[in-house]
């Protein structure tokens, strides 16, 4: 029973990971692609971890469960931070938004000539 539930969790997690990869290809610019990769891959990987924990039994293998929980916490902290760093770096480098983007307040407040300033 546990292994079936765990397999279902792992399968759903992998499906979300695949969706994140499809999003990386389909979406038009780096910012939208980062959104897809950050969100889908974060939850997909967390669901794989939960599936591993369930299929191996939570307390039956406490070592594995503890490692899975630490992995999940690190992914939840580092994935959005890395996405923010990539988006900020891409913007500082001058990567344009998709041409059908609705609004860009950042460019209004920090015009292009100020991109050499360090906004870290």
């Amino acid at each position: 029973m546990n292994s079936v539930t765990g397999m279902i969790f792992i399968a759903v997690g992998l499906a979300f990971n695949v969706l994140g990869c499809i999003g990386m290809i389909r979406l038009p610019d780096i910012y939208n692609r980062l959104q897809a990769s950050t969100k889908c891959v974060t939850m997909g990987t967390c669901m794989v971890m939960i599936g591993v924990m369930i299929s191996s039994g939570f307390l039956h293998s406490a070592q594995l469960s503890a490692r899975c929980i630490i992995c999940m916490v690190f992914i939840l902290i580092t994935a959005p931070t890395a996405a923010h760093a990539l988006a900020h770096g891409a913007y500082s480098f001058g990567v344009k938004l998709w041409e059908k983007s609705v609004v860009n307040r950042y460019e209004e407040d920090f015009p292009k000539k100020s991109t050499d300033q360090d906004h870290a």
Partner: protein
Amino acid sequence: MKQAAMFLLLLLLWVVLVWPFAVTGGRVHLAAMELVPGVIVALLVVLIMRHSIPEGFKVWINPVRLFWFVVYAGVFVFYVIKANFDVAYRIIHPAMPIHPGIVKVKTTLKTRAGIAMLSNAIALTPGTLTVHAEENGDLYVHWINVKATDVDGATGYIVRRFEWLIKRIME
């Protein structure tokens, strides 16, 4: 004091990762030799990082804040799941219904840790990703489906969900 706290935290992380416990015949044995590299590494990290340990870690030793952190964790997980279905829908829909743009939002959070926590929460919630954060609380957020282009409207959509919780946790 804060160096000691960080050392203990790192050592705890090491123990959980290495798991130097062995159960034989109902008794738990601790393999002390496996702790030695952990102690060395934790000491090295504390020595190298001693000037960049954040000051405000003592606020965590407070049951009220921990309670609000548990509430925050629940709200956070709910929005992460919602975000995934939202983004997945936009990806697999043939017409790709996205209206992206960068909007400006204002937060009333004061501490750097609070603003960082809010930025992280924004990056994992439906359709938003922090591109730039100012010290005074202005955040520039990439939004995959812009519903309001003005500062107040966007703040209402993006920031209000988490701001009141993070204010109770961090400030």
